[in-house]
């Protein structure tokens, strides 16, 4: 697929996502620098293509810099943007520390900085706002779906955690546990790390199935990301059980392949981690430039729940083109 068609699809999705189209004429012709981490995951690639589409839609001239997972590249890119005299800078910071100097330089040059999808350990007055998802809430939405789905029935859950010690793994675990607290019928029987990957998700799920009476005792699997859920679905099928029916599957991210599984009735729910962080960022920038409205310091994106009732085939088709 060419980059043009990707952008076209991204643009059409972006239009669908921005339900309220506020007049943002004051952004037209602005130059915005965007320092992206890299392209380490499908989601990151989708974020990049959605950001480009969002900028194009508003007539913004987006200067894109790929840091290839290195903070020094990001700092270099930001210094470059400052030297070019851009109107605003967006950064998806690769790590949390070490940003004070370069952000101070941007502040002295009076260029507003917006952080995307990750925060930094720096004084809050050094950046305009930070747009990110609430990972605890994502876990809570997933847990709440399960609570509603099982009702009063007993339910033994197995959990596929992300990489041990990573922030999303800790937060998504915490959120899920908050949601099922107070529902004694739902218990987490086993919890292991699948490193956010398909193959580890499959391997760990195979182990869980053997350990829980051939999988017959498991009522649901909660995966911290969709890729592990896709692996778990294959493990459930290999064990002769029906994913989605015998074992419910709930996960987080909303990548295309989980919608493909939903079309086949093999996944039950996913919580979206939206790749559209740039939309809210541009909205905040527009309001700030128009009359100096200070946006909220932390803008939280929506954690939307998708189930098979939400036209999974359509979601698959729109998302497939985003570079996931």
């Amino acid at each position, binding site marked *: 697929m060419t980059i043009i068609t990707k952008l076209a699809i991204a643009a059409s999705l972006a239009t669908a996502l921005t339900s309220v189209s506020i007049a943002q004429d004051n952004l037209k012709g602005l130059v915005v620098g965007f320092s992206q981490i890299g392209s380490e995951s499908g989601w990151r690639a989708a974020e990049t293509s959605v950001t480009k589409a969002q900028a194009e839609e508003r007539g913004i001239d987006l200067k894109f810099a790929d840091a290839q997972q290195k903070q020094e590249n990001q700092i270099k890119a930001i210094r470059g943007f400052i030297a070019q005299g851009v109107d605003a800078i967006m950064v998806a910071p690769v790590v949390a520390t070490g940003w004070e100097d370069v952000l101070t330089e941007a502040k002295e040059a009076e260029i507003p900085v917006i952080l995307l999808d990750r925060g930094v350990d720096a004084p809050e007055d050094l950046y305009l706002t930070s747009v990110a998802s609430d990972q605890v809430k994502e876990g809570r939405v997933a847990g709440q779906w399960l609570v509603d789905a099982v009702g009063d029935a007993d339910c033994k859950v197995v959990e596929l955690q992300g990489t*041990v010690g990573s922030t999303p793994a800790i937060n998504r675990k915490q959120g899920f546990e908050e949601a099922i607290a107070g529902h004694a019928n739902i218990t987490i029987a086993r919890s292991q790390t699948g490193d956010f990957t*398909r*193959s580890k998700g*499959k391997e760990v799920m195979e*182990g869980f199935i*053997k*350990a829980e009476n051939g999988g017959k005792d498991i009522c649901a699997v909660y995966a911290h990301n969709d890729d592990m859920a896709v692996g778990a679905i*294959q493990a459930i099928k290999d064990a002769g059980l029906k994913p989605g029916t015998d074992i419910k599957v709930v996960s987080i991210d909303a990548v295309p*392949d989980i919608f493909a599984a939903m079309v086949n009735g093999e996944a039950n729910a996913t919580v979206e981690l939206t790749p559209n962080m740039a939309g809210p960022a541009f909205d905040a920038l527009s309001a700030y430039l128009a009359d100096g409205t200070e946006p909220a310091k932390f803008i939280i994106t929506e954690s939307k729940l998708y189930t098979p009732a939400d036209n999974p085939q359509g979601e698959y088709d729109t998302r497939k083109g985003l570079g996931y």
Partner: protein
Amino acid sequence: MRRLRLDRLANPQLLALVGVLAINWLLFPSFFHVTWQDGRFFGSFIDVLNRGAPVAILAIGMTGVIATKGVDLSVGAIMAVCGAVAATMVVAGYPAPIAIIAALAVGLACGLWNGFLVAVLDIQPIVATLVLMVAGRGIAQLITEGSIVTFNDPSLIFVGTGSFLGFPMAAVIAVVLMVLVTLLVRRTAIGLFIQAIGVNRAAASLAGIHSRMLLMLVYALSGLCAAIAGIVVAADIRGADANNSGLWLELDAILAVVIGGTSLLGGRFSIPMAVVGALIIQAMNTGILVSGFPPEFNLVVKAGMIILILLLQSPYAALPFKRRPAASNKTASS
């Protein structure tokens, strides 16, 4: 034919494997419970064979490289490249056999590149293979365009999830490969030559061994093994995950070879024992999964077990046991 001697079976690797399996059995009593389901065996022990296969396949190739006093850090990245090649080709509509042959050819080419750097340009193996370790994953991402390429071709999927006589295909491939490569090095002089190069390359060359040719051969074999492992892993999850396929598996493969008793200083080597080493590592992984340890303990438990196994193999650990039983054996047999 060599006589099968009973004391050869009592080597540290097999004892360690039995020990790890016994611990698994204690922690999870139905560990060896194997049932027949959908035309295949099904159980935790079968999982060990199935999941251990990719590292075992890598270890087969890695043994030859390490025996020449080298190391191949690029196998994980080659896995990602070859998985990506196979997946994108079947998605593009090529038949599975063509895609598999192409992926194997790419793996072989990667191995020959490593061999060229080491044998012809005389670059140290750890540096030479580091090139592909870093660049390979980038190449794989270019091939998949950064996303996971999912496929549904039944013959390619069969390589990863099919079964032969009830055993998982991945394990069958590993065993066949182990037997073929072992025959190749032990029934010809190649094994002896590899050992000679590992002990002293200059002396081996002076003695008339084509050391360049043989080094190219071992690195090419390692690349080919990595390609097979990459295809198996991609077929298993029905998708090529360029970011994660084979990530850090080169270290597991080296560990398997070392547990198998092959010295990193070159020379003495054993391919079947490297496969046993891979099984030991996987038996620990599977044991941790079924036993219900919290994931925070995974690496600590693994590290502790590996230190124990390596200590058991050290000559010093064997000293108090070896001398006297050996003496008593002699008197008993005479």
